[in-house]
Every structure is written in C-alpha cells, then in structure tokens.
C-alpha cells in the first residue's frame, strides 16, 4: 500500500482542469511537479489539500479515502508563493495558529525549536508585513511544519525570492524535511528545485500527467519531446537506418547517432541528448568507449555562472553542450572553431 495514491483525478474549473491524473507516492518521497503556466499544477495541489472536490477519481492517504473529506480533517499542510501569512498576527501567533488547534501542549518549546532551526527566532514578535520575502517564506514553512502534517504541499514557494535567498531557503527546507521525513509535493518551474530536492518528478501539461518517474528517469529519459524541451535536452530528428545488438543507428541529416533505445527500421524518431552528457575536444579521439563521434562547429558561447553553454552545429543540426569555464579556457574555444563531440550511446535517448 502506498502512502499517497491519486487515481484517475478529473476536475474542471473552466480555465484550469485535470484530466485523469494518477500516481502513487511512498512515505518520505519528495515529488517535484513541473509544467508550464496554466497546466493544472496548482489545482492538483488544491484538490489534494481539499479545496476542490474532484469530478471523478479518488485520493487516498495512508489507505484512507480522503477524496471528499473536509480540508481541516486531512492534516495536509500547504505553503504558497506569496506566503499567505495572517497579517494581523505576529510571527509567533502565525506559527502558533495551527498548533493551538491540533496540540496545545508544549507549544512554546515547539515554536522556539522550529523558529531556531529556520533562523526566524529573532523575528517572533514582528508582524509579517515588516519582514523580507525570504523571512516570510521561512515563517510560512515553520507554520506548516510545526504541526507535523502527514504531507506538505508547496506551490512555487521560492519563485518570489532572489537567487541567493532561494538557495539558502532551499537548503533550510531540505534539512527540515529530512529531519521529519515529511512527504512533499512541490510545484515549481525552476528545475534546480527538482535537481536539488526531488526524488520523483511529475510533468503536467494541459491537465494531463505526461510523465511520472524518478528524477533521473525524467531528466535522462524524457518520454515526450515536450518534456525533453522543458527539462532542457537537445532534440534531433532522424531516421532509423539499422538495428544491431540493441543499438539503433539513426541518420540525422548527414551524420549518424547510435542509441541504446530501439525503434523500427525506417521510422522517423526524435533523439534527446542532455547538454551535460556531451564531451567536446579539439582533436578527434576515436579510441574511447563513446560510440558517437561528431564533428561540429562552435557557433555561440553563452556564459552561465560557473559553466558555459556551447551552441554547436553538426552540418545543419544544432545542439548544445555544457562545459565548465575552466575547460573552456583550457581548450581556448572561440566561435567558428571546429570541435569533436563524443556522446555515449546510453545518453542518446529516443523520445516518444
């Protein structure tokens, strides 16, 4: 029996809808829900916490059917992007609010405990309106976590924060979650949230669950071209020329790629390659385990913090490679240079 089970969820609120969403989570799982704006991510969270009754389908928590149960009975916490703190209460009272209802014994201690672990103990007497975004979000987290909910739902909790605060808050959250073994569903459009926090990923688009898998599976093996594009992989279209020993040979407009995925010979397929899975060199080195060696031209170099994204062209086909700035310096690459790209066939995936 899984901890949370969402089965065949249908809900229609006009502009936002869900269309047959099903997945299961185990206790302690951290699910990142990603998808474009308006895809129904928030509706999914709000159905699970109990603010909408689905038209069809069921939600089970610890084997109990909670589909139509009142939100106040579910013991599921929710954290919003804009914090939704009660402005007429102090920070202390905000954190105390849920605890007072659930378990008023030893409140003071619990509040001070959570406040010090989220570094808000110096803010307890203040009103939320006087706090910074990051501080408000830590208060909102404290308020939800202090009642020890069975599950914590978060709707883009970090998107209103600046990058540094976002990193810090993410780390604090990670620690707090790990200490309590809380099961989490986290709606985000920042892939870093998924990379750093999630164990599982769900991709939603137009009310449908496109993919639900482990983090690695979704990022390395996107099931649709939409997901591949969304998680940042390069897509190349080609024709399957042959199959040999579990390796398919795909012809892509002038060069061939080998992949461990199989498809019918003659079929047109799309290949997905993650930018970080490609190695580039300034000289051909055929004696490696990589099965794909492609000669390409550097067209553009985009600096992104510690890494750079190289835009390459193999003939007419563009693809991206992620390298550290250190390597870039060592190779002395400039636009117009010829490079040799190496890709393991296991990192080339056929997407649906």
């Amino acid at each position, binding site marked *: 029996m899984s901890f949370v089970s969402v089965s065949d969820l249908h809900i229609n609120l006009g502009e936002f809808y869900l269309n047959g969403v099903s997945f299961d989570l185990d206790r302690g799982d951290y699910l990142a829900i990603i998808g474009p704006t308006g895809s129904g991510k928030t509706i999914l969270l709000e159905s699970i916490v*109990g603010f909408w009754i689905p038209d069809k389908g069921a939600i089970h928590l610890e084997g109990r059917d909670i589909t139509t149960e009142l939100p*106040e009975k579910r013991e599921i916490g929710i954290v919003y992007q804009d914090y939704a703190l009660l402005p007429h209460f102090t920070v202390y009272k905000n954190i105390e609010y849920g605890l007072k209802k*659930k378990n008023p014994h030893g409140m003071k201690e619990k509040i001070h405990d959570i406040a010090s672990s989220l570094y808000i103990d110096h803010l307890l007497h203040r009103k939320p309106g006087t706090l910074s975004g990051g501080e408000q979000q830590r208060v909102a987290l404290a308020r939800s976590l202090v009642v020890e909910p069975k599950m914590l739902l978060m709707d883009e909790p970090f998107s209103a924060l600046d990058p540094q605060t976002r990193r810090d808050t993410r780390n604090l959250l990670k620690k707090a979650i790990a200490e309590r073994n809380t099961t989490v569903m986290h709606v985000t459009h920042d892939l870093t949230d998924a990379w750093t926090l999630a164990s599982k990923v769900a991709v939603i688009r137009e009310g449908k669950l496109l993919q639900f898998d482990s983090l690695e599976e979704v990022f390395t093996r996107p099931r649709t071209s939409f997901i591949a594009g969304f998680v940042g992989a390069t897509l190349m279209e080609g024709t399957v020329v042959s199959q040999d020993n579990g390796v398919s040979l795909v012809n892509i407009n002038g060069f061939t790629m080998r992949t461990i995925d199989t498809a019918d010979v003659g079929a047109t397929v799309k290949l997905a390659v993650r930018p970080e899975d490609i190695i580039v060199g300034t000289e051909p080195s055929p004696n490696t385990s990589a099965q794909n060696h492609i000669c390409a031209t550097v067209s553009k170099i985009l600096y992104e913090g510690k890494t750079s994204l190289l835009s390459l062209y193999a003939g007419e086909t563009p693809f991206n490679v992620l390298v550290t700035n250190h390597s870039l310096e060592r190779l002395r690459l400039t636009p117009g240079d010829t490079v040799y790209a190496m890709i393991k066939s296991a990192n080339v995936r056929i997407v649906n």
Partner: protein
Amino acid sequence: MQAVITKRRSGRFNSFKAILIVISFLVTILLVLAIGALFMVPDMADVWESLKSDEMIYSLKLSLWTGLLSTALVALFALPIGYTLSRFEFFGKSFVKTIIDLPVAFPELVLGLCLLLLFGNTFVGKIFSAVGLNFVFTRQGIVAAQFFTALPYASRIMKSTFDYIDPRMEFVSRSLGYSMFETFMHVSLPLARNGILASTVIAFARCIGTFGTVLILAGGTYMKTEVLPMTLYLNISYGNMGMALTSGILLMIVSFVAIYVFEQTEVSL
C-alpha cells in the same frame, strides 16, 4: 529632474486639458456654494430656536433610533451577503446579486411603493403582522424602508472588502485544522474590520437620509413618523425656513462625518 519631466509633459498650453479642469472646478465650486448657503443663509438665532423645538427634538431622536436600528440590521445582513457573493459559486448567484443591487438604481419612491404593496394586504404582510410587525404608516415602517434602501450599498462594500482578502489565507487556515466557520471568525472577519466599519458608516448615512422610501411606506405624519428628511420636507411646504434649514444642516453634518470616517478606512467601493 522630476520637475523637468513634468514641465515637458505638460508642454505648452493645452486647451483640451484646460477645458476638462475648468469643467471639474465649475461643478465643484457650485457644490461648495450650495453647501455653504445652507450654513450662511439662515439666521443662527433662528436655527438655535428651531433646534430646541419639540418637533426637531422628536425628529432628531426618531432619526437616530431608527437609523441605528436599521444600520444594525443592515450590518447583520450585509456581512453574510457580502461574504457569500465574494466567496461562493452557487446556482442563482447572479440573480441574487442583481436583485440585491437593484435598489441602487431604483427610484426610492418606487421602492417605497413596492414595499407598501408587499407589506399591505398580501400574505407576506400578514405573516409579519402575525408576529407584531406592521410596516405600513408606522415607525417600524421607517426601519423597513431604511433597511432596504441602505442594504445594497452596505453589501456591495462588504463584497468588495472580501474580494480583497486573499482566499488562500483562508485555505491555509483550513489546512491547519480550522473549520470554515472558525476560519471566518479568526481570519476573514478580523481582516475585514475596516470594510465593516466603512459599510456601517455608509449604511447609517443612507438610513438617516432616506426620504422617498420612508415617505411612501411609513408616511410623513407630523410628530409620528417624522424623521429629519421628513421635517425638512414638511416645513419647507409650510414655508417654515428655519426648521427646514436646521434639519438640512443636521443631515449634512451626518454626511460629512460619514464620508470622513469612510475615507479613513481606505476601502474602495
């Protein structure tokens, strides 16, 4: 820098802008003169005498008592109606909204006539009179007339007040174990405090000032159903300017205080 930009934006003389400003001032000045006339024209000794007359004291007392009672009733209904219209989707919502709002655009006299017919000889009227409530040509009728005239204004303010309160605060409260009612008491109501104050003040001003509805339903009987607007109307018909002006001044003071308090609450209509 700011000044330079303003100057450039204004540019040279702009006749369109100038005409609009002149129109705004024209009406404002006329209104200020009209309001000022109420305080300038009468002989203050006359006003003082009128203020001490039995009729004025009766009228002022009756206005305050009926006004306070009606306002309390309006607040009692406007709060749930405003919350319902702001938060819930239900069958017939737009019907309820339209009908409750209707008196805003309705001539007061017609509203009074409708209420007179309803509370007259229909079975609704009989139900009310069975529990001792007779609205036709009585002081109870004043309260009924004021209630229906002021309710749409108050419930509109309450609705827009709740529209401005993020429903997600209520969601969070419920996820923390509080029922819908407890959430309303702990979250929605305290956050709506200014809106409640604003709607109450506006409702009181409307109640005190209601004339047409009261005249038709409760009648304008001397020293019986005589509220301040009725005193103004009756005395101006007799040519008794001192009494008319005094009730006008009293009504104006109520309006000024109401608008002042309303502005302080920073609620948008």
